[in-house]
């Protein structure tokens, strides 16, 4: 069942009431992120934690590589500095770590959100990227009363309800 709303406030009201009935909300499509809905869907993303580990991984591998190159592989004295010129390695470490985090987080996003080149979008309502807020419910759930839910959505300002 698909309910289409004209603004986020109606959507949030209907969202709360459907949830209060104990029904599962399949998906919500909105033109911009609504944090109330994102939290209400009960999903969490661990991308921020992942990014932290990418950062640790990036920093260690960049620093490790510079240590390998300038101390183990081919030691050369530059300007009287020690082979392991740690302070001046920090500059490259910081910048290259940021690059590693960015690229790896982008790939994680691409994989987890399934957003990648060549993907065909499964569009429920094309207006959802324009000006409509779309609530999708599973009508084959046990205890799903079509007429009742349709009334609930309409009462909360749904401009269109369809199956």
């Amino acid at each position, binding site marked *: 069942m698909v309910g289409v709303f004209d603004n*986020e*406030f*109606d959507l949030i009201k209907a969202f709360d009431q459907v949830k209060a009935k104990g029904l599962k909300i399949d*998906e919500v*499509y*909105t*033109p*911009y*992120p*609504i*944090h109330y*809905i*994102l939290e209400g*869907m009960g*999903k969490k*993303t661990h*991308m*921020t934690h992942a*990014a932290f580990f990418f*950062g640790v991984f990036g920093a260690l591998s960049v620093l490790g*590589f510079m240590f390998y*190159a*300038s101390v183990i*592989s*081919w030691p*050369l004295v530059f*300007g009287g500095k020690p082979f392991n*010129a740690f302070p*001046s*390695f920090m*500059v*490259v470490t*910081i*910048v*290259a770590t*940021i*690059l590693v*985090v*960015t*690229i790896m*987080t*982008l790939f994680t*996003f691409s994989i*987890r*959100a399934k*957003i*990648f*080149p*060549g*993907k*065909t*979008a*499964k*569009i*429920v309502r*094309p207006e*959802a*990227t*324009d*000006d409509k807020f779309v609530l999708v419910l599973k009508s084959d759930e046990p205890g799903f009363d079509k007429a009742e839910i349709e009334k609930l959505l309409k009462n909360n300002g749904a401009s269109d309800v369809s199956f």
Partner: protein
Amino acid sequence: MYNSNVRDKLIQGNKSLKQISQEIIAPIHAKTPTWWYIALLISLSMFGWGLYCKYITISTGIGTWGVNNTVAWGWAIINFVWWIGIGHAGTAFSIFLLVLRQKWRTSINRAAEAMTVFAVGCAGLFPLLHMGRPWMFFFVFPYPNTRGPLWVNFNSPLFWDFVAISAYLLISASFWYFGMVPDFATIRDTTKSKIKKAVYAFFAFGWTGSSKEWLRFEALSFVLGGIAAVLVVSVHSIVSTDFAAGVIPGWHTTIFPPFFVVGAIFSGFAMVLTLITLMRKLYKMQDFITDSHVDAICRILIFVSLIMGTSYLTEAFIAWYSGNEYDMFKMFHNQMTGDYSFEYWAMIVFNALIPQLFWFKAVRRRLWVVFIISIIINVGMWYERFNIVVASLSKDYLPANWASYHPSIIEIGFFIGTLGMFSTGILLFFRYIPMMAVSEIKGVSKYDMSVEEQEELKM
């Protein structure tokens, strides 16, 4: 609840969500205006001249430039630093104002990021061709090679610079692109043309706007925003070490990193101002780029201009206070009164004095005055880089080594070429990409309602 009296409504004209997407996307669907073709023709011919000059530089050599043994860095490095400075506004706008929760950034950040990507692309060409043998470019990569392996010097600011600039280009381009994905989906879902639908559907990467996607999208913006905030400060600090790590009078000072970063933000914001006044006039975007947006940027520019003025004074003071005769000679004889006095005073007037006109509301309200001052600032910033590079190099410790520097026609052409490349990019951006972040503007449009209006909708 967000309620500010400092600024007018972010978006004028009580627009519905549909109107917001239609009006921003309108230039993509509308017939291409004649001025656009004329501007593109001019830009492409500048670009073409630049290509010819690059061809001459590569086929004949650096000898076609005006640089000499003493002034080994000429226009190439001046323009490199100038473009990188302009390229700073993208991250400054997207990240700093995001971190500071400035909601007015939403109608400007897309254009600022586009500008960043093109400007950094232009900047990268200069050091590349300054190498003399650009086909050996890959030597700067630290890759296992048959020469030992002889690695690059990780202590060298020039290598730091290479890492910083290439990382900056990649990061700002991906940040820019992923911000556009939801807007490409909006175009895909609203257009009637089949070709546009197919093209934008490809670039939208299958975006639907589901909560799963938004959740991760928000996390991605959070991570990239947070981590790229470092870049706002780091990139130009590293560029400044190219100079500050050298033992040339006028370069070897600790003020350089903050001085460069502030200068970069200054010229970047000025270029953003140039761009948005054009957008507002040419595409009639006055409902999105309101007087209050222009006003906000002008106020920032006053502040940054004061910092620039302070930096110039500090530079002069430290040159005197250090008691170092070479520093004093460079500052007081070579720059303030000598061969480069025009460039020096132009820098002071253009960067520290003229922007002070923004104190007056009458100036901030007149778009054409704002436009002219924004151009003046960028010219002034160009002079600043000229002073740093040429004034210091031309007369260093040994008078026997002194030399003057004049750019050759090839160097000038190279610079004009990058101007053409930049404006070609901006024109294509105007034509084929939503100029403002549509989904973000929709997100803040509800903040424009009064509290009563919101309560009414919540009932």
